[in-house]
């Protein structure tokens, strides 16, 4: 197989780059080692579209974050992904921390972040009645938003595939040969040839760069643990509540999610294995003790799950985006830690700029369609809409996930969508089936059945998330 461009890694960055490239008349493939997109840092982060006051002025992080906020609005509209502009507070818990807010405010102004202001306790309590007793002041950032990172990635990829890009799952790049004017990628799916390679492999971007002898990227994974609380707790905070940032990151936040749950985290633990996403008791303990400083009413009785993600922290302390010194047709997109999600649309724009320059004369596709239709969301419909929908297609009348009210029709849609779901977690991320309070206890086995039926494979070949994550073994005696 020969492609003009091969993108490695289907996180939010690789997927949005692929979508951007699908605007041109070139052959593009997105290679992902997992069974689905959004399986790396993209599925386990805080899901905040940061306003952009945190990054060092002049850095790529600062530039792309602020530009990303602008482009995110457009992308979410075109892709029909909910983006909620709820704003954020960075809270100072003592007088000593107030200068820190001042500093952030100045930095934000320099980065071009609009609307920043410092508010004091009275105002803060009015807007966040559940805030902790020791909060004295806060920086208010009105442009901060929340988005579902995997939904954005899925939607972007779906749109890219609709516009002609190819998605190759279970395709791990193992080695890269440099030819005269192309690369041969050795993958778990065989050899793949490409003129340009984009390294968007997240926490593994250092390893992938090494495949062409580029050793300039040193990634130090930093794990962050989270708790996710039940929807009944979603209203404990109205905006994202940060604490003052430290060297290790932005500290523990408490925030509503777009789906109405409450997310609490992350911790920051440096380790060596970027594939290790085991939460630890200590990590979760830190998250909890820090979170109750912001919102004392946070209670683990209402936790429905815990998870963790690895920040691709780079020793250079900024995003690394551009042609490798070893080969100009090999583009690194590395060290994309926070604000990577916020910056992703701007990163895609920048990388596409580099690609089109390398390719010289490339035409835009006249038939490019930027729109991705909104999937059916039964739970958000009125009775009249529901009645009409079921009338048209009876599969929307069968509720599979009772906690989140997800219908069989929505699950079938998720499986047959471009770059659709192949496993139980894939269905879950696309539809929310199994994301509620019972965490798939009731609907898990039904989702397995539907996947097997729609994909026409035996039930015991359906996995939780690809690889060896089998759910069932042999038939009973």
């Amino acid at each position, binding site marked *: 197989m020969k492609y003009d461009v091969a993108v490695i890694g289907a996180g939010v960055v690789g997927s949005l780059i692929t979508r951007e490239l699908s605007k041109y008349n070139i052959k593009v493939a997105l290679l992902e080692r997992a069974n689905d997109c959004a399986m790396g840092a993209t599925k386990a982060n805080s899901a905040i579209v940061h306003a952009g006051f945190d990054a060092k002025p002049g850095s790529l992080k600062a530039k792309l974050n602020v530009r990303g906020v602008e482009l995110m609005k457009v992308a979410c509209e075109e892709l029909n992904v909910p983006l909620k502009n709820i704003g954020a507070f960075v809270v100072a818990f003592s007088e000593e921390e107030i200068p820190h807010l001042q500093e952030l405010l100045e930095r934000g102004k320099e980065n071009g972040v609009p609307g920043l202001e410092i508010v004091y306790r009275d105002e803060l309590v009015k807007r966040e009645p559940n805030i902790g007793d020791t909060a004295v002041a806060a920086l208010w950032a009105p442009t901060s938003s929340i988005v579902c990172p995997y939904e954005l990635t899925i939607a972007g990829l779906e749109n890219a595939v609709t516009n002609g890009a190819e998605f190759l799952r279970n395709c791990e790049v193992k080695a890269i040969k440099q030819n005269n004017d192309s690369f041969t990628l050795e993958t778990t799916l065989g050899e793949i040839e490409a003129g340009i390679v984009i390294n968007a492999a997240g926490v593994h971007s250092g390893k992938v760069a090494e495949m062409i002898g580029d050793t300039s990227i040193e990634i130090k994974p930093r794990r962050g643990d989270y*708790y*996710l609380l039940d929807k009944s707790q979603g209203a404990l905070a109205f905006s994202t509540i940060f604490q003052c940032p430290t060297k290790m990151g932005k500290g523990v936040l408490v925030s509503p999610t777009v789906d109405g749950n409450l997310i609490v985290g992350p911790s920051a633990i440096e380790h060596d294995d970027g*594939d*290790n*996403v*085991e*939460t*630890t*008791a200590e*990590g*979760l303990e830190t998250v909890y003790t820090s979170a109750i400083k912001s919102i004392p009413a946070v209670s*683990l*009785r209402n*936790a*429905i*799950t*815990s*998870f963790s993600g690895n920040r691709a922290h780079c020793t250079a302390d900024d995003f690394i985006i551009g042609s490798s010194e070893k080969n100009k047709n090999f583009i690194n997109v590395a060290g994309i830690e926070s604000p990577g999600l916020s910056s992703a649309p701007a990163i895609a724009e920048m990388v596409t700029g580099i690609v089109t320059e390398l390719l010289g004369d490339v035409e835009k596709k006249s038939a490019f369609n930027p729109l991705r239709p909104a999937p059916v969301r039964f739970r958000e419909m009125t*009775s009249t809409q*529901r*009645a009409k929908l*079921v*009338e048209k297609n*009876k*599969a*929307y*009348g*069968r*509720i599979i996930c*009772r*906690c989140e*009210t997800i219908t*069989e029709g929505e699950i079938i849609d998720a499986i047959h969508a471009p770059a659709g779901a192949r496993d139980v977690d894939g269905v879950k991320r696309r539809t929310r089936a199994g994301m509620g*309070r*019972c*965490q*798939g*206890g*009731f609907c*898990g*086995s039904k989702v397995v*059945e539907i996947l097997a039926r729609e994909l026409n494979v035996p*039930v*015991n070949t359906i*996995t*939780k*998330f*690809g*690889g*060896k*994550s*089998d*759910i*069932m*073994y*042999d*038939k*009973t*005696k």
Partner: protein
Amino acid sequence: MLNYDLVVVGGGPAGMAAALQAKEEGVEKIVILERAETLGGILEQCIHTGFGLHYFGEELSGPEYAGRFIAEVEKTDIDVYTDTMVLDVSKENVVTAVNNKDGLIQIKAIAVVLAMGCRERPRGALSIAGSRPAGVMTAGTAQKYVNIDGYMPGKKVVILGSGDIGLIMARRMTLEGAEVKVVCELMPYSGGLKRNIVQCLDDFGIPLRLSCTVIATHGKERLEGVTIANVDEKLKPIPGTEQYIECDTLLLSVGLIPENELSNGVGIELDRVTGGPVVDEYRETLHKGIFACGNVLQVHDLVDYVTEESKIAGKGAANYIFGKKQGGTFINTKGINGVRYIVPQRVNIENEEDVKLYFRVGQVYKGAKVVVECDGNILSSKKKVMLAPGEMENVKITPEMLKNMNENSEITVRIEE
């Protein structure tokens, strides 16, 4: 909009018993709405025996017990919609449901019986650290895979929690050729029925470790092992007692939560301890005309009690539909000193029938007394050989006792050692 006298939400043993009782009392138009493909509720996946000892006086399997009620329902003109999910119950008792044959269904009811059962507490509620691979599931999910789908969810099993479903699955998985390595229970006692511990663990040589819990799961894709540890009196893991156990499956049997999303939707007041609605002796909630019974009201371990409770609710709903027994003077019941909760939480002192107060204790007691008191008068006091959190108990209140009470009275039940 359809019109019914009585809408029953949920077609498990609770819903069926309530509907049948209402029919017997003379209610005409009754409909049962059930989410699953068949009536029977959770019993359909409980293919072990042990059901109906109290009610039918014989040992039946879950599906057999349910089958008797299904046959009864079929003999009547009670309408049944299966594969039909109730989405909403309104304050005006309008029930909205959906299925893939009739589409969206709206029913105006005079009375509603809520019988939605309960769900298992998932892993998240426990915050076990570690990875989140395949192979960690609730015992009920595993039961469904094995008994309904006919597939084994694993071969080397650790079970966390000694609730009845966990105990029963320990036996079931063993019989299917899996190795059940250990059942860990956080508390110093089991929450399951004594007979299940004997028949499901002891008879198969499966160790039960009390005051022990799973603190971490390991394995990236499929579960590869768990770390267990002993816990102290505050239920905190004791450092140094950690032990790694290789396994590919972790079954959770750590409690059941009444399924009250619909009740919340109507704004029905719930009891913080039971997780179910606050009800009176006819199982009427604080919302007029809405009744609740079975596991949605309080988690039961014996289906026989579910049936008993649901017949009371069915009768209450019938009385309501016929306009009998409206109003009265309600007083509260209260569990103190070792009694965790009481159902019903309110009693009408004008009631002319015996009322049974069901309760659970918070720990194991041997040879303790159950004392019922009202306004300083001891109504009854009975010595019990054994009281355990796993077994539901009851005490009787007679109309004679009620006659001496007034609107300020409160009935308390307590344990005296």
